[in-house]
């Protein structure tokens, strides 16, 4: 009964659908409804979007990019330049490849207002004036009008539409490791895979179509039987992973092979990154179009398109056909057409000189003019004039294909990397048995490559002689997607664009969505005509990856991005802390009112989470030597229990990082670095140890997140800590400034306490075994409630360190700031025998004349010059800049750090600062970098 329904369906909605074909891949029991330009349409499961539309009688699928000429099916493959359609929010879908699915909304592209009537097709009338690159020659004057012209040109941009709210979709990635990766699941590819697997190799077999078989799928009954047999063998074989509706998009150095997989359930596209010991390239051949006047009319198509439409999709390509055939594939198409009930108006044998010079018609083909001048009415012109070898993957691997005039196509040049093996049609022609034998030999060789033993020999495939047919006696389209004609190419060559690379750039031939797979060889042939040289001399353009376009989503994958948080992160979030993204770390910027946080630290006590502070555990008898080498100051005499501030410079004398390092035991030190510098410093230290002083005994263990770090700062910090700590006497005498102690805090042992003060207050930096971080942090707030303890964030800390005049590496220094420029004269010890960057610092001090970091205060205390405001003399002479600036809650005035030219460093000097709004204000150089408590009584208290 379904049969009758189907019959009915054929009568009404699918006039071009044939009765069941032996090799058809459609499931007539499953109808799929969709819309085509808003109107209801229908097809069967297994149809491509294009075959479903063709079955329902659609002949015009799109309009061309430049002249907006109507375009129909040409190759009925993924590469068909004429049926790139919009499917829902998915632009530029290859409708001759994409499987039909129910409910999709399919629309044509490049059409306005509609596919059938396109006003821009008026361009055709003026095409003689709009030759390739015409835009270079006009819109030149007046210059100011170019933007207007440009907007007009931009309206002609081809392609689909992306909306600002298009959903991202689910994309994915995967790594694959195999000995042999086979690109192409035709007879050669399948047998290569079987042979490689038989030799014990892990094999990945990649096929562009939804099923293995290659051209056998739409060949003779014998072909289909052979395909089925090979498919069964592959399915049964051990160690072959098959990917269908997947394509090898690129081969990169060391056989890093990219495969895009399109049929993974729930995944829009998946990028597979394959490390293959060897790559077998077996893509088969691509049929080449013929260049003649009108060759882009809907109704002119390739013999392989006919074979696919009839045999795979049971679609009747036309009613009355003329066939131009130069090879057996063309002859076979004639049989397909007859079987499909297409009237054959004439078969022209190109091998005996028959030719087509012109195709005529309006929206679709009506008539063809033959070489002898006679004309034939028809709505289908099939050409079979030759094949193109898709050598892209070999090109990526370093090969330069070589043209063989007898076979009229390019062949591998043999310069490709040794771990790449071409197979099948790429290498030559032959019977199915010969192709299979070739594939088997290549597969065995690929499996053996790299492994021990002898390489099995690979038989050479014969090359079938083929007439060299590229262009007829007339001019026609060479590049469908770019609307480039053979005339354009000849004109470009005459104009001096006389190399294939230049003509490509000037005319954009082969630059469109099909990337030259159909066009390249014809373009080269036409250029050879123009330059009066052979195709071999003209050569071919370099193919570039990817072999087929791949979505940004698949390339991005799941987009893993590291995000690091401290053990107290949840606590901060719960208290509405504003997050600050600092490299990988998310930190609390402030909890609402930074100024209040500052005041609380200055009057009571505050806690800040400084876990990201870099920490390196250094152990061994030679640690002091290491410290002496990487820091600009001295370390030999640091006592156990003491900590010291240090600055590191690169070999160019530029400030690299700073921090304090404490001595915990005879041979045990803990080094702290800036949060952002942690990784760099670790690598820097390892570099010195491994490449300069491997004889030194130093063990480096990064312990940055082994400890939750918190700074307890403020006049009441000692009291607060006193309530929690066991085993440490906090008295100023027993535990003075710049010392380190170990003890038990809130019941947690193994805590380190540094008595240091970035904020300028009495403060203790407490390092707690990380898992107990939240416990201790919360304990501090419980214990200190009556002391007014409150958290403070990075912003408050920045304000306080600025009040205190502590610089921040990377903010108050830049990529060229050497130590003396950062006002570190007091720290740098040039009498040390050696340390990183020493020579540059010796010379800097001797030469002088460098900008120097100073404290600055605007004369008007209420104006805070934005950071990066420039200090100027005269109209535009820059004599420095503000590197840090804030309103100081403590001092009630604006305070800054900044660089000034050498002649302005004297305290009291007035300098002109230009604000972002161009106002200019005077700022005064202060005596110290510190604006507050320069002598440090508070933190020493």
């Amino acid at each position, binding site marked *: 009964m379904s049969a009758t329904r189907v019959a009915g369906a054929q009568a009404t909605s699918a006039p071009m659908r044939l009765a069941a074909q032996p090799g058809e891949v459609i499931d007539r029991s499953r109808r799929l409804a969709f819309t085509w330009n808003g109107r209801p349409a229908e097809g069967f499961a297994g149809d491509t979007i294009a075959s479903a539309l063709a079955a329902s009688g659609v002949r015009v699928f799109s309009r061309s990019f430049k002249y907006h000429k109507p375009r129909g099916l040409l190759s009925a493959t993924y590469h068909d330049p004429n049926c790139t359609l919009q499917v829902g929010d998915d632009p530029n879908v290859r409708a001759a490849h994409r499987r039909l699915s129910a409910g999709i909304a399919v629309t044509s592209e490049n059409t306005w207002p509609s596919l059938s009537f396109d006003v821009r097709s008026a361009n055709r009338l003026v095409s003689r004036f709009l030759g390739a690159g015409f835009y270079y020659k006009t819109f030149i004057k007046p210059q100011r009008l170019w933007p207007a012209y440009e907007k007009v040109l931009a309206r002609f941009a081809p392609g*689909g539409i992306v909306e600002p709210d298009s959903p991202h979709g689910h994309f994915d990635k995967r790594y694959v490791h195999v000995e042999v990766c086979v690109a192409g699941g035709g007879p050669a590819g399948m047998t290569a895979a079987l042979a490689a697997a038989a030799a014990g190799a892990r094999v990945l077999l990649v096929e562009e179509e939804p099923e293995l078989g290659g051209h056998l799928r739409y060949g003779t009954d014998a072909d289909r039987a052979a395909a089925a047999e090979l498919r069964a063998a592959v399915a049964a074989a051990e160690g072959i992973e098959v990917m269908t509706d997947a394509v090898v998009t690129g081969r990169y150095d060391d056989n890093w092979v990219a495969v895009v997989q399109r049929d993974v359930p729930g995944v829009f596209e998946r990028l597979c990154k394959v490390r293959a010991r060897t790559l077998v390239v077996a893509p088969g051949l691509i049929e080449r179009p013929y260049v003649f006047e009108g060759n882009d009319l809907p109704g002119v198509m390739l013999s392989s398109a006919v074979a696919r439409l009839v045999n795979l999709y049971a679609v009747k390509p036309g009613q009355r056909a003329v066939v131009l055939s130069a090879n057996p594939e063309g002859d076979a198409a004639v049989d397909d057409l007859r079987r499909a009930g297409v009237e054959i108006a004439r078969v022209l044998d190109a091998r005996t000189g028959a030719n087509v010079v012109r195709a005529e018609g309006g929206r679709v083909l009506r008539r063809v003019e033959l070489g002898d001048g006679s004309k034939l009415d028809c709505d289908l012109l099939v050409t079979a004039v030759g094949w193109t070898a898709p050598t892209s993957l070999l090109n990526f691997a370093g090969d330069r294909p070589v043209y063989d005039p007898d076979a009229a196509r390019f062949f591998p040049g043999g310069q490709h990397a040794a771990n790449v093996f071409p197979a099948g049609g790429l290498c030559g022609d032959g019977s199915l048995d010969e192709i299979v034998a070739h594939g088997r030999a290549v597969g065995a060789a690929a499996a053996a490559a790299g492994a021990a033993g002898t390489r099995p020999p690979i038989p050479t495939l014969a090359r079938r002689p083929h007439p060299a047919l590229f262009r007829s006696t007339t001019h026609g389209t060479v590049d469908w997607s770019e609307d480039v004609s053979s005339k354009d190419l000849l004109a470009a060559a*005459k104009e001096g664009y006389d190399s294939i690379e230049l003509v490509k750039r000037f005319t954009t031939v082969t630059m469109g969505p099909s990337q030259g797979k159909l066009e390249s060889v014809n373009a080269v042939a036409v250029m050879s005509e123009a330059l009066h040289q052979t195709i071999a001399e003209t050569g071919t353009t370099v193919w570039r990856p990817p072999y087929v376009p791949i979505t940004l989503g698949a*390339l991005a994958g799941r987009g893993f991005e590291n995000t690091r948080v401290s053990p107290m992160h949840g606590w901060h979030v719960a208290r509405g802390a504003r997050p600050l993204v600092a490299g990988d770390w998310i930190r609390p910027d402030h909890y609402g009112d930074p100024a209040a946080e500052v005041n609380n630290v200055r009057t009571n006590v505050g806690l800040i989470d400084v876990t990201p502070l870099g920490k390196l555990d250094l152990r061994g008898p030679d640690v002091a030597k290491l410290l002496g080498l990487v820091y600009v100051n001295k370390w030999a005499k640091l006592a156990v229990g003491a900590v010291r501030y240090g600055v590191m410079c690169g070999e160019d004398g530029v400030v690299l990082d700073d921090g304090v390092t404490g001595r915990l035991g005879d041979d045990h030190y803990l080094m702290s670095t800036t949060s952002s510098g942690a990784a760099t410093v670790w690598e820097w230290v390892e570099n010195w140890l491994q490449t300069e002083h491997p004889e030194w005994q130093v063990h480096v263990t990064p312990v940055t997140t082994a400890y939750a770090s918190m700074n307890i700062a403020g006049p009441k910090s000692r009291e607060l800590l006193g309530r929690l700590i066991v085993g440490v006497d906090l008295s100023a005498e027993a535990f003075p400034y710049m010392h380190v102690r170990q003890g038990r805090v809130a019941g947690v042992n193994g805590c380190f306490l540094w008595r240091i003060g970035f904020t300028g207050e009495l403060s203790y930096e407490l390092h707690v075994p990380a898992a107990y971080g939240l416990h201790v942090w919360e304990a501090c707030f419980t214990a200190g409630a009556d002391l007014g303890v409150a958290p403070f964030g990075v912003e408050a800390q920045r304000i306080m360190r600025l009040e205190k005049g502590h610089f921040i590496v990377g903010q108050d220094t830049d990529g*060229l700031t050497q130590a003396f420029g950062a006002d570190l004269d007091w720290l740098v010890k040039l009498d040390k025998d050696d340390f990183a960057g020493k020579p540059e610092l010796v010379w800097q001090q001797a030469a002088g004349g460098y900008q120097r970091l100073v404290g600055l205060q605007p004369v008007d205390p209420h104006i805070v010059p934005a950071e990066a405001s420039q200090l100027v003399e005269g109209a535009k002479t820059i004599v420095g800049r503000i590197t840090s600036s804030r309103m100081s809650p403590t001092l009630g005035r604006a305070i800054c750090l900044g660089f000034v030219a050498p002649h302005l460093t004297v305290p009291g000097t007035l300098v002109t600062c230009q604000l972002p709004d161009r106002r200019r204000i005077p700022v005064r150089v202060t005596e110290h970098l510190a604006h507050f408590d320069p002598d440090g009584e508070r933190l020493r208290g």
Partner: protein
Amino acid sequence: MSDQPVGSGVPARGVPAIRIPTPTASPNGSRNTKARYPAKYSALSLFTHGLRGRDWPRMWRRHELRPSYDVVIVGAGVHGLATAYYLASNWGITNVAVLDKGYVGGGGSGRNTAIVRANYLTPEGVRFYDRSVKLYENLAADLNFNVMYSQRGHLTLAHNDSSLRTMRWRAEVNKLEGVDTEVIGPDAIKELVPYMDTSDETRYPILGALYHPPGGIIRHDAVNWGYARGADIRGVHIHQETEVTGIDVEAGRVTGVQTTRGRIAAPIVVNCTAGWATLISDMVGVKMPIITHPLQAAVTEPVKVFLNAVVVSGTLHVYVSQTDRGELVFGASTDPYASYSTRGSLEFTEELAGHILELMPSISKMRVLRQWAGLCDITPDFSPIMGITPVEGFLADVGWGTYGFKAGPVSGEAMAELIATGRTPEIIASFDLARFAEGRLVGEKGAAAVGH
């Protein structure tokens, strides 16, 4: 055409004075093509040519090598061609050869992402690139060739306060130099680029951007071809497929070059070979502080135009613009290791896609159509090396890193002036080779990361 007072700048030892001949009589190219030479391009000529179906004359002609030239320029990219063009047009020096081992504009000049801007960090950098922008603004008219300079505005995003600080720094210096650059906030960014995710929930929230209205994109090939045509019309010889295999030096002076087509005598040889710069300067024993890194780029399939500004993110190492053809053109930072390979890598497109989707999540279904790579000659301070070298007559115009194309016009103008006057123009004075040995690095180092 040049605002530079003739002969301004520092006298440069090591530039032999050359006689300035009267330009060679109007080229007789018309013989090798039936088209009238040189052609004047305009809507009208386009119409008449179309009507009569007449051929256009050659853009530039092919010549035999002369045994000697006054100036030999190595590299037929935008720098070499512009130098030749300004030598001829500004100074009447036309006995000039431009040599290239490949074809016109086949190196970095044809592989870059064609972004033009002047919003640099240091005053010397800003002045230099601003001059280039000015020249680009009038280039179509000067060359009578549409180079399609689209001043659509240039945005450099800041995702953290340190980069926001650097943006402000650049904006302030730009203001002082009279260059239109300002820092704008997320809302203003969203208006300029509606597809941008400016919400603060993202992993790399957008805190602001450096907005530079004069910045934009240009048709790079057109610039190369336009300069080539302009130079050719004035009698300069452009020799493609002519590789320099050696440089002759006698008593510390350049005397000529060896090529695959024979020897050429010349008192002045200019190195404009970008990624291959050290291979050429090694020929005369001049060591350049340059490392060659590939810089990759990619283009998507076209979609209807939706992006009308150039967008750069230094933090995410990505920059993107959309051509009038509807393709998105992407670039990133240079490859992590030195190489002369232009084969391209997969990891580049992966990183790129990941980062662009952080900025514009809705374009995930756009497809990358093609990727390629060019070679960048990177210096320690991200500034070029221009002017004289220890070998008399051997001049450098190298060290362009990722900034070369946008500097083409001003470099050509300045190098031409240096050659013609024997004095180093002020505008390139701080880019001298000696600065490295003397520890005077240029401050552009402050604004590292992606600088496009």
